[in-house]
């Protein structure tokens, strides 16, 4: 019987009631009496010298309160970067200034130059057209390899070049890796591009700044995945506001996918302007603005090589990647192509020697940072395309080649040559499960049926490893993180037994309000309806690090478990007192405390009431109340893994790829809410398939964004996708967190792109086109047709 509550139950998402009935309260729903409206004047050129910004005409327009330029921000800090990468020579990365508003130069289309604040939005927009800007255009820096040539123009004059860093990992292994390649029986080489993506959450970014002159308190309402991080970065590094005077609220947030992790100039602006002008200031991004101001994702150019011995064992792997940073360093940008990418290059395999080189490059494009998967999709795509190519070159079954080189279940914990230690996994099991649920055995018959209709059918496999819940804090500190990566929780049991859980995680679609309540309900034995989950407001939640990197249940959930265990321990003491028994004899089951071996018991509310009405209470030895806070800092990442299978049909006349079936066999360890997990996987698959077939962020030779709207940037639609088969019955629980859970939020987006591309290449090879070994994403009809007609 499926459970109807607690851990393991597919409880329906309680938050969906408000989302589906239009009762969600998003940042744009927040309107403060007397608020003014900000309109950003943004650069229309990719690279240029900003000679003059004349705001006099604009400031004279009706309703205009002030037009801000860089000069107004002379006294504040720039937008900070939260991670410092050290290069292969031991030097810190080059870190350019990132002013709130462009100062002296513009560096990408969309770079903010001035901001009009007016009484109405239309007035602000009218006045924005009257801001006179004098720019001398400079040659834009767009191609990463050209950007590193000595004669390239520089994005940042204060730096020595456009190179942010040249990172080697593990640098000490480089010579041994090269030696292994020299001895290899076979070397497979693949050059590929991981296409740049625009995150496009359904809700565009919004920021509302408010300032109370009588108290000196500032409040920022913002579309953020991590309000405490924004409070820290903006308060400490940009505006110089102590935490006690700055509240950051991220209410309902309509999707983030990474793009709402970062501290953006618009947040600092509205907070600053509200104080300067003495009125609340609101900014709402248009969709067009989002395309040129939200951090974008991916954009790697890679050459990867695999060395194999005569028995097809992987002996070494090396990669060289150019990673586009865009014009400025977004909050976590430097860590994505390095620590979230290089450390995953072992994949599911026993490859003993690995060397990863990453050159991060500044260009005159929108900044690039984490996007669903963040570094791990790039690693998985390279590796799983490469292994597939190797199998084809060697004439062996791609499944068999993978199996032969998989880390075996008896090898865990497994120390990879790229620093990380996988605690647990069973890749043979997920591969078996995939072949079963995808009816791999029946593929040949289906391929024959397609062929009879003039279509080319192919089957592609990818097996991924992911590292979720980046940690522990002391390690990431050594790697350059300028933040901790723990999570916090306060569990406040109220007098009548209901429970308020204050979490530092942030939900922007993940269903925390449901699944976190299931965890606490299971532990205490009370109904989940008695539990509320509170998040998103720095004024009432403990300092938390927010939600990204598939960390919330593994890290935030563990903090909740830790705090709940403290609650249970104290409640047992109270129960022991009430029952006049020894604490060691108290058992908690189904919300009732009983003395072992007796029929003496007190229920949950009897204990909670005693905690707050402590008439019969051991006041001499224990404080009243029942509220506990815990911080959880994981000892390791969690390592979900899975096998994905994609079945496509290619129309040879048009190059159009149709996905007929997609199966996912994941190992997420223990699962709290199977329905939510399945939803996460389906969403991830849609995004990964979007990257593989549809989405592409394209700049022209002048640095203008060609795919700047949904007319040209193709988001996946329901009819682009098949019905997914999602299975998570393979389970190797995480060994180091109390729930035994791994992350599931990004897996779909990580494992699916190589599965799709492998399937298309398979279809072409089956049709005799063995000359086509790779097509860069997205595999649009025109690209596939061009490859077939080259």
């Amino acid at each position, binding site marked *: 019987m499926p459970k109807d509550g607690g851990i393991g139950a597919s409880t329906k998402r309680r938050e969906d009631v408000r989302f589906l009935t239009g009762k969600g309260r998003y940042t744009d729903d927040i309107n403060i009496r007397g608020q003014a409206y900000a309109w950003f004047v943004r650069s229309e050129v990719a690279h240029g010298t900003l000679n003059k910004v004349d705001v006099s005409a604009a400031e004279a327009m009706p309703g205009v309160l002030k037009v801000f330029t860089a000069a107004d921000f002379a006294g504040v800090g720039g937008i900070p970067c939260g991670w410092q990468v050290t290069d292969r020579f031991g030097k810190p990365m080059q870190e350019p200034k990132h002013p709130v508003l462009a100062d002296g130069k513009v560096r990408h289309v969309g770079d903010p130059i001035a901001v009009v604040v007016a009484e109405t939005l239309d007035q602000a927009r009218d006045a924005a057209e009257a801001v006179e800007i004098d720019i001398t255009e400079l040659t834009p820096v767009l191609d990463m390899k050209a950007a590193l040539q000595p004669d390239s123009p520089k994005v940042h004059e204060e730096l020595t070049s456009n190179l942010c860093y040249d990172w080697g990992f593990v640098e000490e292994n480089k010579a041994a890796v090269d030696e292994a390649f020299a001895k290899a029986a076979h070397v497979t080489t693949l050059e590929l591009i991981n296409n740049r993506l625009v995150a496009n959450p359904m809700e565009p970014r919004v920021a509302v700044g408010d300032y109370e002159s009588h108290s000196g308190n500032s409040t920022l309402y913002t579309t953020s995945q991590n309000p405490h991080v924004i409070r820290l970065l903006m308060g400490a590094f940009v505006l110089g506001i102590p935490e006690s005077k700055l509240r950051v609220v991220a209410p309902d947030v309509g999707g983030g996918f990474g793009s709402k992790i970062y501290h953006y100039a618009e947040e600092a602006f509205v907070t600053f302007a509200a104080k300067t002008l003495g009125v609340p200031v609101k900014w709402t991004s248009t969709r067009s603005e989002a395309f040129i101001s939200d951090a974008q994702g991916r954009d790697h150019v890679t050459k990867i090589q695999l060395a194999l011995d005569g028995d097809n064992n992987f002996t070494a792997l090396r990669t060289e990647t150019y990673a586009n940073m865009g014009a400025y360093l977004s909050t976590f940008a430097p860590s994505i192509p390095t620590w979230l990418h290089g450390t995953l290059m072992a994949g599911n395999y026993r490859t003993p020697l690995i060397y990863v080189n990453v050159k991060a490059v500044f260009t005159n494009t929108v900044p690039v940072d984490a996007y669903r998967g963040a570094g791990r999709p790039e690693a998985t795509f390279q590796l799983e395309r490469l292994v597939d190519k190797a199998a084809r070159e060697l004439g062996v079954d791609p499944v068999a080649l993978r199996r032969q080189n998989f880390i075996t279940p008896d090898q865990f914990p497994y120390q990879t040559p790229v620093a990380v230690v996988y605690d647990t996994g069973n890749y043979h099991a997920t591969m078996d499960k995939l072949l079963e649920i995808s009816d791999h055995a029946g593929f040949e018959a289906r391929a024959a049926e397609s062929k009879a209709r003039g279509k080319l059918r192919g089957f592609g496999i990818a097996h991924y490893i992911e590292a979720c819940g980046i940690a522990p804090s002391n390690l990431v500190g050594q790697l350059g993180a300028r933040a901790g990566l723990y999570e916090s929780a306060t569990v406040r049991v109220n007098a009548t037994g209901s429970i308020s859980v204050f979490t530092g995680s942030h939900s922007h679609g993940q269903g925390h309000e449901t699944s976190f309540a299931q965890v606490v309900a299971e532990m205490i034995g009370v109904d989940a309806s008695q539990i509320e989950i509170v998040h998103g407001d720095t004024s009432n939640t403990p300092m938390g690090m927010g939600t990204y990197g598939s960390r919330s249940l593994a890290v935030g959930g563990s903090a909740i478990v830790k705090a709940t265990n403290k609650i249970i321990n104290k409640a047992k003491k109270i129960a022991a007192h009430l029952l006049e028994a020894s604490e060691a004899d108290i058992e908690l089951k189904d919300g009732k405390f009983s003395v072992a071996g007796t029929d003496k018991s007190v229920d949950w509310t009897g204990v909670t009431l005693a905690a707050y009405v402590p008439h019969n209470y051991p006041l001499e030895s224990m404080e009243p109340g029942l509220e506990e806070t815990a911080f959880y800092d994981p000892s390791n990442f969690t390592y979900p893994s899975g096998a994905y299978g994609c079945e496509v049909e290619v129309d040879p006349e*048009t190059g159009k790829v149709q996905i007929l079936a997609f199966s996912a066999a994941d190992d997420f360890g223990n699962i709290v809410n199977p329905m939510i997990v399945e939803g996460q996987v389906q969403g991830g698959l849609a995004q990964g398939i979007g990257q593989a*077939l*549809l989405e592409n962020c*394209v700049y022209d030779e002048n640095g203008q964004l060609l795919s700047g709207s949904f*007319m*040209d940037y193709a988001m996946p639609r329901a009819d682009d996708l098949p019905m997914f088969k999602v299975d998570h019955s393979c389970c190797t629980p995480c060994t180091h967190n109390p729930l035994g859970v791994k992350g599931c939020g990004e897996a779909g987006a990580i494992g699916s792109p190589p599965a799709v591309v492998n399937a298309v290449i398979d279809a072409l090879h089956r049709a005799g086109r063995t000359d086509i070994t790779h097509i860069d994403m997205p595999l649009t*009809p025109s690209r596939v047709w061009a490859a077939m007609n080259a």
Partner: protein
Amino acid sequence: MRDFQFVKPSSIADAVKALSSEGAVALSGGQTLIPTMKQRLNTPDVLVSLTGIAEMTGVCRGDSGLHIGAATPHATVAAEAGAHYPALACLAAGIGDPAVRSRGTIGGSLANNDPSACYPSAVLGSGAVIVTNARQIAADDYFLGMFSTALEEGEIITEVRFPIPEKAAYVKFDQPASRFALTGVFVAKFASGVRVAITGASNDGVFRWAEAEAALSASFTPDAIEGLSLSGDDMISDLHGTGAYRAHLCKVLTKRAVLAAC
């Protein structure tokens, strides 16, 4: 969007009069005009709505074929034209999404003449007649290139009259993002011969493929055009496909349209 005046006349005469005022622009379904106004690329002083004129809406069988009022939305054509002209109903049902089909109109589409719109291919492929407040214009004389038509300033399309072919089909290959026609081919077989009109492909907007028409008039089979090809030199080339790709699609889709024609 900037402020503007809005008028909604109930007769063609009143609409023509309203459009004669300074800065007046005709508004039909608004599927192109409204987004450009939101972006401030278009700032009309007066919008003259054409959707409140009874004689400009509806689908009916007339003497010279199927008559469709210019302000008839795509959804109505999709629902009502099928009994008389299935290929046309099918085309209308494939434009945009339900919201677009409920607002967008045939007259608006033809007046705009977007090079990737669907309707121009049906009008040119059928040899339809475009009726305006002032005259009747043959389809062959109407389309003058990308976003360019034979309409005079202030002239309003009031109706489109489609001759009904023996067989016809429209095959659209979607641009993946917008789902406009990356290339779309309308094939219509009349007793007098076959017409082939192609949208989405040419830099000059919708066009007739004369060689294919001749070959298909001789033999209405996909194989009839096997030996033909179009040059991609003057075709649209963008991030969704090169001119050569579009030229290739013209042929593939023409064959498919011949197969599908009923």
